[in-house]
């Protein structure tokens, strides 16, 4: 298992490095159109061919990978912080605050994740600039994805609240906020790390789902979701296999995250 984890880390590192070097590696910008070579098959100029309006697919995969791989962790960080704030405080404070926080959490959890996403996305304007659509998509993931983590953190914080060392610290006169900051929060760290890592592949997959359904990142900005939307036009699987490259890349990256995650699960346990 350790070997697989090392391989997974290496794969993630490689994919992130390559996507960060997109400016140098890509033959052109993600929006540059080669009108004379629209919908072309892979060639020496266009390694993965071009899309229906002549944009280089390899460049779009590189830039799309960068967007998905940089913003999914950012959204995961936001959701983990929110979970720590809501769930951690709810567990620590208990009482009415905990009941309120968990009622809201239950409400969010009672809706299927994808349904919740498309409902909230629909409320926001759809005709926004590509950059705003990227921010809206990942902010939404971050702001809505904290609920299940909050539940875990709430139960962990509840058990910490009644732990002997916390009682002793309280008896020694440590105030509520200081106690939470110094004694409770550091003990929540393993769970927070695990939740952060769990959220990244979940958000990558959610963005891909939203993109395919036309509710994700807006054109011409590429992301894995918008790149996978191309599969909609396929007639058969063997017809243009190079169109599956974004899917293969996504599966490899998410699998790598899952393998890295197995280590985080052990840490959290």
């Amino acid at each position, binding site marked *: 298992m350790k070997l697989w984890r090392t391989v997974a880390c290496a794969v993630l590192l490689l994919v992130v490095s390559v996507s960060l070097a997109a400016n140098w590696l890509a033959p052109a910008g993600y929006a540059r159109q080669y009108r004379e070579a629209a919908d072309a098959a892979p060639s020496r100029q266009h390694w993965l061919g071009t899309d229906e309006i002549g944009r280089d697919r390899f460049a779009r995969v590189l830039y799309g990978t960068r967007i998905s791989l940089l913003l999914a962790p950012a959204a995961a960080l936001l959701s983990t912080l929110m979970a720590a704030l809501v769930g951690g405080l709810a567990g620590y404070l208990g009482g009415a605050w905990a009941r309120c926080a968990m*009622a809201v959490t*239950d*409400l969010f959890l*009672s*809706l*299927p*994740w*994808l*349904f919740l996403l*498309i*409902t*909230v*996305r*629909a*409320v*926001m*304007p*759809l005709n926004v600039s590509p950059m705003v659509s990227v921010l809206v998509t990942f902010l939404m993931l971050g702001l809505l994805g904290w609920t299940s983590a909050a539940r875990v953190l709430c139960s962990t914080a509840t058990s910490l609240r009644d732990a002997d060392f916390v009682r002793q610290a309280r008896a020694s006169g440590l105030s509520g906020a200081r106690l939470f900051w110094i004694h409770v929060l550091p003990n929540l760290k393993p769970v927070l790390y695990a939740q952060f890592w769990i959220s990244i*592949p979940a958000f990558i*997959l959610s963005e*891909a*789902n939203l993109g*395919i*359904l*036309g*509710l994700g990142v807006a054109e011409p900005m590429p992301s894995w979701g918008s790149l*996978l939307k191309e*599969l*909609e036009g*396929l*007639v*058969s*699987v063997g017809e243009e296999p190079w169109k599956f490259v974004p*899917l293969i890349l*996504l*599966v490899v990256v*998410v*699998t790598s995250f*899952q393998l890295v995650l197995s280590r985080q699960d052990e840490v959290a346990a």
Partner: protein
Amino acid sequence: MLGRKIARHGLAIVATVLLGGLLSAALVRLAPGFDSDEAALDPHLNSASVLALRQARLEQHNLFRFYFHSLQRAAHGDLGTSISLGQPVSVLLRERAPLTLRLVGVGLLLSWAMAMAMALSAAWLRVSAYDALTTAISGTFLCIPAAVLALLSVLWNVPGALAIGLIVFPRVYRYARNLLAKAYSLPHIITARAKGLSELRILFWHVVPVAGPQLLAVAGVSVSIAVGAAIPVEALCGLAGVGQLAWQAALARDLPLLTNLTILVTLVTLLANSGADVIGHILRGHEA
């Protein structure tokens, strides 16, 4: 005791559905463009008609009044009219719900059949290579976005229900495998095996009572996952169900339709979870 539990669940469902409705009403009310009405741009309307339209919008300004009126109408069977499709929401739901129910139902059956077959065989065989293989298969499906599985099902002419089954099965498998592995490692089950009891007898007499209530909880959660999976499957496979309706409503920003769908989906998932909880409670009661 059971009656109290059911009553508590009922109250929780009503409160959550009402809160969910209020939340979606708040989203509708706060959404950009709520105050404007496309109909007011119609050049055939005179100023009095435009004023009447504005007046109607102004009446919906107060969120709580807006929500209360919606609830009042809903109590009389009027769920409003879809903006994008121009049809009463109740008619749309009545037309589309049977297909979604069938898809989700068959999909759940398939997913549970696949997950339990793999989890049970892994627990029975206890061969690490086989366990790794089943975990790898379910892990691969877990790493493919639900919408891609829906697209692939179109390419391979696979029924939508099977696509839902393939989306749900890895999630169910993960829990089922862990629960069964844990149950099979219990001392009394190891003893039963050592004494030569048949695998079926061990399964139904010893494993199911241990893992059953928790598997029931997973069953409740799997309904929610299947309902979520129905959205990309119906949208991309061209199946006219409630999932496709939700997607169309999202694309067209048909907020009255989305509010009703939110309440419906919340109700379905809460009923599934509470149902699983109550059945688990009854089973545990019988054991005691």
